[in-house]
């Protein structure tokens, strides 16, 4: 039996032979097919979460800080429980309520400067009304009323005789001090620059409490004057320091001065503590206005110890970066027909998206509240591998026996030769298509400043300026179509002339090498809003790019 027969016989024996596989194989296949589908949705889910998270962050109204001060409840209770407070106690309950009101109003404020100032002016008006009412024991004519609760406590007709009330006075004093200390502690945590001022405020608070019941008005006024001078000095120093960096601070400081001036009038009448409360409130409001939204405060309103980042000064930055990533391409039918389905299969089976590389420069400006805006120019290139079978021709080298020669002695010599012949068949081929792009990225972001590391969240759009295509793909008419033709016939160009608009999102980690220079790594996702194929083309092709940017940043 020769080789051919041997092969044929075995082939015949094995033809149709079947062996049942273990059932666990199907279980494994099913699991893998399902998890493959889930992975696909996970990618889109992660992208959607990123975009929604960025959108929610920028659009979310400022969260209430009421939860930061649980003492508010006790303040209200004190106000209810102490209807017979003495004038000093009244001052304190009014101060406590001022803080409460300040917090409530703060929670309703928009982060913009104009809103902050408008709300500030309104509050100050309220403060003056309260003081006037407290000092006169009744509401002044022509001033609008504050809340009924406040009126009942502030406009109490009780005089100095009831100052030493053992229940209301003690309870109100302790609670007020507690609130004040909390406010001071909170402010201390928020700003180390206010330490000096706050220590003065604490002393003042202690003194104010201690002075209750002393009956020595002259001594109290003297100490009030000293403390006021101290406060004014501290305020002036703070203003000078901040004025160099923030026009907003200047504007708010003017408001603070107005409060201090009005307080001076009332302090002469023995109503100490207002300017402290007002100043603390303004301090807090100034910081809030300067910082804008704080993500930590927003997400964790009950957390008193949110970390404080950086100096929040206005910055300008220049970035230079390179990027490497992966291109994802998705092909679907643009029209429903059997021919196009076949063509779709042909394109899908032949094309494999590969890497994406690029470089770019970016200019940024970062405001004091941490929000930044970036714009630049980026040049990048995507690559797609095309593997296909050429069914038209293949070149094959074969050995051909030319002849068998027999010499005189009867020896046989076989003469061989190698020739090349062209025969019809199939041949695997491979080439690469390149897509060069020039884009303008525009993003807005938020920066969490740190002493050594910054974390940035950026989101925005990318405008395509140039889209150059090189290579060839299977055409819809079963031919190879060269990309980048200048005047392609309608419906035959597989790619658009421009890529259009894409949305981008990224998270960057920035490491400071020095005051000016830093290095950053930034994973970025880019989704093309429009398909990269023309609308009249047989197939609909959409792109998605995931890349990692690495670069340097110069700040000035």
């Amino acid at each position: 039996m020769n080789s051919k027969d041997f092969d044929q016989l075995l082939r015949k024996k094995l033809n149709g032979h079947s062996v049942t596989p273990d059932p666990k194989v199907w279980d494994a296949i099913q699991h893998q097919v399902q998890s493959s589908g889930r992975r696909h949705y996970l990618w889109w889910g992660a992208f959607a979460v990123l975009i929604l998270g960025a959108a929610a962050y920028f659009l979310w109204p400022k969260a209430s800080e009421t939860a930061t001060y649980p003492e508010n409840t006790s303040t209200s209770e004190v106000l209810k429980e102490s209807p017979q407070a003495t004038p000093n106690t009244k001052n304190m309950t009014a101060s406590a309520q001022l803080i409460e009101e300040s917090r409530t109003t703060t929670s309703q404020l928009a982060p913009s400067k104009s809103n902050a100032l408008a709300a500030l002016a309104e509050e100050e008006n309220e403060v003056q009304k309260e003081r006037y009412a407290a000092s006169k024991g009744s509401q002044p004519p022509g001033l609008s009323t504050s809340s009924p609760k406040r009126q009942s406590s502030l406009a109490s007709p009780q005089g100095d005789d009831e100052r030493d009330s053992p229940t209301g006075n003690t309870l109100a004093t302790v609670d007020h001090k507690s609130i004040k200390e909390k406010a001071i502690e909170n402010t201390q945590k928020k700003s180390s620059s206010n330490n000096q001022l706050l220590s003065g405020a604490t002393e003042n608070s202690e003194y104010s409490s201690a002075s209750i019941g002393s009956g020595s008005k002259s001594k109290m006024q003297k100490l009030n004057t000293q403390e006021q001078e101290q406060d004014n000095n501290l305020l002036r120093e703070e203003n000078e320091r901040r004025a160099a960096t923030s026009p907003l601070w200047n504007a708010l400081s003017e408001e603070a001065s107005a409060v201090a001036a009005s307080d001076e009038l009332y302090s002469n009448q023995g109503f100490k503590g207002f300017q402290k409360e007002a100043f603390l409130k303004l301090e807090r409001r100034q910081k809030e206005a300067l910082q804008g939204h704080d993500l930590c405060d927003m997400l964790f309103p009950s957390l008193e110890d949110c970390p404080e980042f950086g100096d929040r000064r206005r910055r300008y930055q220049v970035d230079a970066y390179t990027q490497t990533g992966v291109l994802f391409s998705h092909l679907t039918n643009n029209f429903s027909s059997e021919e196009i389905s076949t063509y779709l299969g042909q394109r899908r089976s032949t094309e494999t998206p590969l890497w994406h590389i690029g470089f770019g420069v970016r200019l940024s400006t970062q405001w004091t509240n941490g929000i930044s805006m970036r714009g630049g120019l980026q040049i990048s290139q995507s690559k797609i591998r095309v593997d296909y079978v050429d069914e038209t021709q293949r070149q094959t080298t074969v050995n051909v026996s030319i002849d068998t020669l027999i010499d005189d002695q009867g020896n046989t010599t076989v003469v061989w030769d190698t020739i090349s012949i062209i025969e019809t068949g199939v041949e695997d081929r491979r080439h690469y298509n390149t897509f060069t792009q020039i884009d303008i990225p525009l993003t807005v972001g938020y920066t969490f400043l740190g002493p050594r590391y910054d974390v940035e969240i950026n989101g925005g759009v990318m405008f395509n300026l140039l889209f150059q295509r090189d290579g060839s793909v299977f055409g819809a008419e079963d031919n190879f179509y060269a990309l980048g033709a200048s005047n392609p016939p309608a419906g035959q160009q597989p790619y658009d002339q421009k890529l259009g608009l894409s949305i981008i999102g990224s998270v960057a980690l920035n490491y400071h090498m020095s005051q000016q220079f830093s290095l950053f790594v930034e994973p970025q996702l880019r989704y093309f809003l429009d398909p990269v194929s023309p609308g009249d083309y047989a197939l609909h092709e959409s792109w998605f790019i995931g890349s990692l940017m690495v670069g340097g940043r110069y700040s000035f």
Partner: protein
Amino acid sequence: MLSEEKIISGCIEGQGDCQKALYDLYSGKMFALCIRYAKHKAEAEDILQEGFIKVFDKIDTFRGDGSFEGWIRRIMIHTAIKYYHKASRQNESLGWETLPDSPLRPEVYGQLDADQIMEMIQELPKGYRLVFNLYSLEGYKHKEIADMLDIGESTSRSQLTKARAMLQEMIGKMYSLVL
């Protein structure tokens, strides 16, 4: 029972019952094929699993211009070859050898059944087994086999020759009829 056409269209849409129907229809034949290429049963199961994953993933590219079974078969063969590349590569380069005519009487072959042949093929060294499967049973040319396995064409020929010789020897031992 679903027709092959409906099974295919259902698989394109990702319907689980059609995928199961397709698997039930072809898994037996394909597993037999995988066993011939694999070193052992576990490897054959791996090849079968990976092959069917590819089938489900690429089924929308099936053009319908050939038999569907042949299309699946080619996927399984390429998956098996991929496994071969993962393992050590055979890089023998032997000279041209011709297979002597079989010393076995023709009636011996008639007594062989498919399972016995499968067992013997599995006992072949890996390189021999692949070349024999591809050339003798699947009908590929030596050049195609050489390209697929990344070996020389002469290697493919020599391994085929040795595979045949070993099979004949095994058959002979089985029946103790070596002449």
